């Protein structure tokens, strides 16, 4: 497989806390192809962000990658030395954080922060790096780039800051962009602008992207393929179309049902009963079984493997073939 950019196999990232070992990511497998956008969807605490941080190996303490393989362009990232990883971070794989208000250092000007990263990865003079930074500002459509670049983060609006965060991520032309809920903390109109911007830039620069979100609406517009995460595991992975119109995992269906939809008349929004499980002692077997309306005794015994039930459609459900779940989007 030559066009496979990133492949994650059975990744396990645990947090060793006073209360016990939190299994935030417990056997996640994913892959991203060249030029593709993978949507990583799940509730808060499902392990989306930790998966992304694990790729760059910057999981904050006490988090630790305990098992699995991460192959990037065929090379194993988990076997690389720290200084080799520093050359990959920001240059090969870039990260965009959720909250633009906190992801820029408040005490340095934007110019300082961008120039530092550009010069860290590329052999450029200060002046050249500054010109490059101004070009990036133009790329992310910030007005008055020559003036705005000398601003400090507190002088800019949230939407501006997120554009700068995008510019920072793109500063060294990465092959893979990890966007961790890049629009969650923005106003809806700004959200659309940023998404549109990212979509265009991705096409323009030929990058791949992992878009992490809990917002089904966001992935619908951007992602080519979607992996649905639940409690640290992948429960379904398929093309965006399949996930929306032909999901097989009860959790995916529940997620879709919980999204308000103008086209479907409903008295009440349907909620998924219960909350995301405690990850220190997760439910046995399928982690979704305590909340699943299709659960059977076997579901609490056996861990369902991720099986390809039709080409490019993977589901981790023991009853995937028997139960007849239906996407709410297909309801007539």
């Amino acid at each position, binding site marked *: 497989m030559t066009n496979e950019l990133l492949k994650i196999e059975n990744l396990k990232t645990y947090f060793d806390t006073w209360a016990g070992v939190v299994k935030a990511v417990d056997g996640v497998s994913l892959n991203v192809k060249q030029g593709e956008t993978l949507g990583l969807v799940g509730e808060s605490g499902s392990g989306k962000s930790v998966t992304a*941080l694990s790729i*760059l190996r*910057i999981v*904050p*303490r006490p988090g630790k990658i305990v098992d699995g393989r991460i192959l990037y362009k065929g090379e194993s990232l988990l076997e690389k030395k*720290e*200084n080799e*990883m*520093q*050359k*990959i*971070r*920001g*240059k090969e794989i*870039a*990260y965009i*954080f*959720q*909250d633009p208000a*906190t*992801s*820029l*250092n*408040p*005490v*340095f*000007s934007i110019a300082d922060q961008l120039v*530092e*990263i550009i010069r*860290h*990865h590329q052999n450029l003079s200060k002046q050249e790096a500054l010109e490059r930074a101004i070009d990036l500002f133009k790329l992310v459509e910030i007005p008055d780039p020559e003036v705005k670049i000398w601003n*400090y983060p*507190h002088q800019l609006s949230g939407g501006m800051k997120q554009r700068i*965060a995008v510019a*920072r991520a793109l500063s060294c032309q990465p092959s893979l962009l990890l966007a961790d809920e890049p629009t969650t903390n923005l106003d809806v109109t700004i959200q659309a602008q940023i998404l549109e911007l990212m979509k265009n830039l991705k096409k323009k620069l030929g990058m791949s992207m992992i878009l992490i979100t809990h917002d089904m609406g966001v992935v619908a517009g951007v992602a080519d393929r979607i992996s649905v995460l639940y409690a640290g595991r992948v429960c379904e992975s398929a093309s965006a179309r399949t996930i929306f119109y032909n999901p097989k995992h009860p959790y995916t269906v529940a997620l879709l049902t919980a999204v308000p939809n103008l086209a479907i008349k409903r008295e009440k929004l349907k909620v998924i009963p219960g909350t995301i499980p405690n990850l220190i002692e997760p439910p046995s077997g399928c982690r979704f079984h305590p909340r699943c309306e299709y659960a059977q005794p076997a579901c609490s015994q056996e861990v369902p493997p991720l099986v390809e039930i039709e080409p490019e459609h993977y589901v981790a459900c023991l009853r995937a073939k028997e139960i007849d779940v239906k996407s709410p989007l297909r309801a007539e």
Partner: protein
Amino acid sequence: MSIKRKVLHFFPTRVAHAVQSPLAKYVLRRLLYLIPLFFGILILVFVATRLAGDPVKLMTGLNPRITAEARERLTQYYGLDQPLYYQFAKFLWELFQGNLGNSYALRGGTPVTTLIGDYAWETFKLQLAALFFSLVIAIPIGVMSARRQYSKLDVSVTTTSLVGTCIPIFYMGIVTILIFSYFLGWFPYGQAHSLEPSRYPFGSYTLDELWHLALPTAVLTFATLAPVVLLVRSSMLEILRQDYILAARASGLSERTVVYKHALRNALIPVVTYVGLYFGGMLAGAPITETVFNWPGVGRLYVEATAKLDFPLIMGITVFITLMVLVANLITDITYAYIDPRIRIE
């Protein structure tokens, strides 16, 4: 709570002013605000010292042959028979002319300005050395401790710092003198210089100075160090959890750049505030340390002046200390604006 909010909580007016006005205006406004404060302090101390007792009685109390008339003459000579407001007005009038009066007791009526001039340098020397060493030691230790939270290193650092904060400085001073001067004989008992040049180590005046400086500096450094270590540590812990630190790591910057450039600059903001406020007090001398080490500094002078009810000297040192504290605060504000652009002015 964010650092910014923490600081805002401390100095709401200061920050509000800085945000709205250019630096010069800001400094000017601060200075204007300091004027009533300065006079307020003077009035308080002036009244308090006059309430403390009668210096003439103290001077003559042990002399049985003194006559009531002689006492009267002394009181008149010092102007203590005048009403309080008149005394204060006179004090102010002389203050504006740069005259702080003559000491009652020390060196047979030496001008107070001369006395302070002589003692202030020794205080500066000691305090600057202690501040320098405590910062140079405390910042890296605090940072290391924060980076390895709950490690053995961290636990021993926090424990030592807590113990350091708890031991009273006079006790630490006495024990240090006992060990290093009395038992081991490595350092002199006190004073800033040897009395005779023949006792200078290798005949060098500078070495003699440093030799005398060593113990009091060590004790003062340790006492200053402990709270700064704890402050750097807690501030650093909070900053290291911030998204922009993770973002700096995600950009491929080296761990050293991330910690010592991106994190430290942010973590130092509350430290600057603390050190600045502390520094003002330090310049005024550390009465206890200076007394224990018999150090000829302003702090000890203040203690002596108070014990002898030496009114002009007490007022003179008060003026000096107040000015030092106010200047230190001003420097803090400016440094602060320099480090944190959010305080800086458009």
